[in-house]
């Protein structure tokens, strides 16, 4: 038995022992465990699962143990991920700090920033919001106008950020702010950590077409931020931001994969709800073909993920390939949602029927429309594929 096999066996046994059966069901949005001072658990078992993972540092498997992380190497982290998928384990913790800020802090943060923030992220004690987008600047992030003015040992921050995920319940926010209004667009930006409890911060939830309001607009009115909350050098925030965006894209792709695996199956849904022919085929032949087309793509996407992983180890793959994942993953998720709606028919036309499973499916259909917009629109993805991946001229 190789070392990897031994590790796999150990992980498998540990997960079997520590992940309650209830935490091996497909996760629903309402039961996600979001970090922070207001953390809430849907059940005792959810809490136990979270705490077990937290205590091994497996909420952040690859982060250094000195900051509370799991200390695993890439190979080991992959094994853990595979075993969690195999067992259907729910992700133990949800947090922007975990997904995005952490890796950037480990890279660019001061020792003090790391010691202050990383362990609390791993343990789910602070909930982080992301302060990137602004109402006037969507895909064109660098045109942001929120300003941070030097005031001795503080910055004075004024402006507004949008799409700040649940900023109304966040403890901290990481922000891109303009510190040099005269420099070229990307040169005058800095990266700041801001305590959401500071004076001068207000938030307004934004209602979504899915009926939810998990995003906010956040307003900064002369908010005082200590200068030691600056990450990286002054006016070098764009470098930090790029690093974060990389993690965001990777995250989006991974989440699609995980979602796909543990989601309700279209085939089962269709077979349980729609007329079948004597041959056992869906009578709606048009739907049947389109389902086949989607399922083939979804399977191929899994193969592609495997290939990238295998290719990374052996160096045998085109570096353009990973650039395709977000575009493909979000597109297939939306195709799937549309197929689901067709299968549900009249039952898929209400978000407030009072039947939780149905309402959730329909809300997700609407919610997932954001997947091709958030974290780099599909159009931006195609630009990147064409220019960076395929070498076409700007």
């Amino acid at each position, binding site marked *: 038995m190789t070392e990897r096999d031994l590790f796999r066996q150990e992980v498998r046994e540990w997960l079997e022992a520590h992940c309650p059966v209830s935490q091996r069901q497909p996760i629903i949005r309402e039961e996600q465990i979001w970090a922070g001072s207001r953390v809430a658990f849907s059940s005792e078992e959810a809490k136990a699962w979270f705490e077990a993972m937290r205590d091994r540092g497996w909420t952040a498997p690859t982060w250094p143990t000195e900051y509370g992380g799991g200390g695993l190497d890439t190979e080991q982290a992959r094994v853990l991920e595979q075993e969690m998928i195999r067992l259907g384990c729910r992700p133990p913790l949800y947090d922007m700090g975990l997904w995005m800020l952490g890796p950037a802090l480990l890279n660019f943060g001061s020792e003090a920033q790391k010691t202050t923030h990383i362990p609390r992220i791993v343990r789910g004690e602070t909930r982080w919001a992301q302060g990137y*987008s602004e109402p006037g600047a*969507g895909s064109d992030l660098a045109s942001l106008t929120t300003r941070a003015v030097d005031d001795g040992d503080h910055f004075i921050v004024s402006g507004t950020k949008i*799409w700040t995920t649940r900023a109304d319940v966040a403890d901290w926010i990481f922000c891109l702010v303009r510190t040099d209004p005269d420099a070229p667009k990307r040169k005058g930006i800095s990266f700041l950590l801001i305590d959401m409890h500071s004076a001068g911060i207000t938030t307004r939830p934004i209602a979504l077409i899915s009926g939810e309001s998990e995003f906010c607009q956040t307003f900064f009115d002369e908010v005082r931020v200590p200068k030691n909350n600056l990450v990286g050098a002054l006016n070098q925030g764009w470098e930090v931001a790029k690093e974060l965006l990389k993690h965001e894209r990777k995250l989006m792709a991974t989440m699609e994969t995980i979602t796909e695996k543990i989601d309700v199956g279209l085939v089962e849904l269709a077979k349980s709800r729609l007329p079948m022919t004597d041959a056992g085929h869906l009578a709606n032949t*048009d739907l049947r073909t389109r389902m086949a087309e989607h399922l083939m793509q979804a399977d191929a996407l899994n193969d592609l993920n495997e290939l990238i992983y295998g290719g990374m180890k052996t160096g045998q793959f085109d570096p353009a390939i990973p650039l395709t994942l977000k575009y493909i993953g979000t597109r297939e998720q939306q195709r799937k949602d549309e197929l689901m709606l067709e299968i549900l028919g009249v039952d898929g*036309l209400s978000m407030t029927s009072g039947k939780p499973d149905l309402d959730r499916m329909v809300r997700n259909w*609407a919610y997932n429309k954001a997947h091709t*917009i958030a974290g780099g*629109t599909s*159009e931006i993805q195609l630009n990147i594929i064409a220019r960076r991946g395929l070498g076409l001229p700007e």
Partner: protein
Amino acid sequence: MILNEEQRLLRSTVADFLNREAPIEALRFLRDKEQALAWEPALWQGLCELGAPAVAQPEQAGGLGFGAMGMGALMIEAGRRLSASPLVSSAIFAQAVIRLCGNATQGDRLSPGLMSGENVATVACQEGTHFQPQPTQCRRDADQLSGRKTMVLDAGSADYLLVTARDQNGALCIGRLACDAAGVTITPHRFMDGRQYATVELIDALVDEWLQGEQIAVGFQRALDETTIMLSAEMLGGSRELLERTLAYLQEREQFDVKIGTFQALQHRIAEAYCQLELAAASVYSALSAIDADSDALSEHASRAKALTGDIYQHLSNEAVQMHGGMGVTDEMDIGLFLKRSRVCNQLWGDSAFHKDRFAALRGY
């Protein structure tokens, strides 16, 4: 859409009225009420005063004589503003069923009330989650009806129902029942388009009368086709509105220091959608003419109009959300309301897959 002088005047009168009385905010207002209302009484009253429910009917029958083309023009305007009213359920569908499946006496007795808007009726013809034109489970037993109907438009606020069922010989029959008749249970729901649809449960419900026309099955199919075409006109209106709003946004929104409308990839996508929209529009107009010309090929027209408008309405709603970026997924913009309406419309009287299948069958392959 080629209209005569009178039809053009009608269209602009209706458009003015709807702009005043039923802008999209009216739908939001309706949607956000606690009770699942089907329509705002004031809006419906205004439409009735304009004669909207009588637009298509011939003058000799007490109508305004604008024909299906006139009614279609009105439905396009309603579609642009997402106006919720019993026009489709009562003025179009129920009237057509009475005219085509009832005998002359029934027509003379029931039509005036529907034409004036004094009465509101709705047709209960769907069973289960997906539309099929033939009732299978709802049964006539002497003068009673039993069964379960789904997605019945506006039933929670209507006066009476027209219910399709099978008689003991398996033939189609249509019974008229008051909504508050014994044995009738109406459960209204608000769907995501903000409108009211009901499930209707019939247990030995006593029918007031059976429609007595000579060719009920043929007549019902025709009534259904006419209604499907009128709904397609509404869907066309919604699609046009989405296109125009998106074009306006593309011309106004800046990213990377240029209008996003200068991006060629977006230009080509919106141009392609426009081509599809105009094809769908041409289908709707020729289907409306086919109603007025009493065409034999009405079912083919209906399936073509419904499938083409269904596809483009859904496609354009997706494109509109995407091209509006982050704002497109907020409820603050109206785009999402069209998105949801397009999905509900797709399910009404057969989705695109249903109508493509029917079109192929009608073409004999």
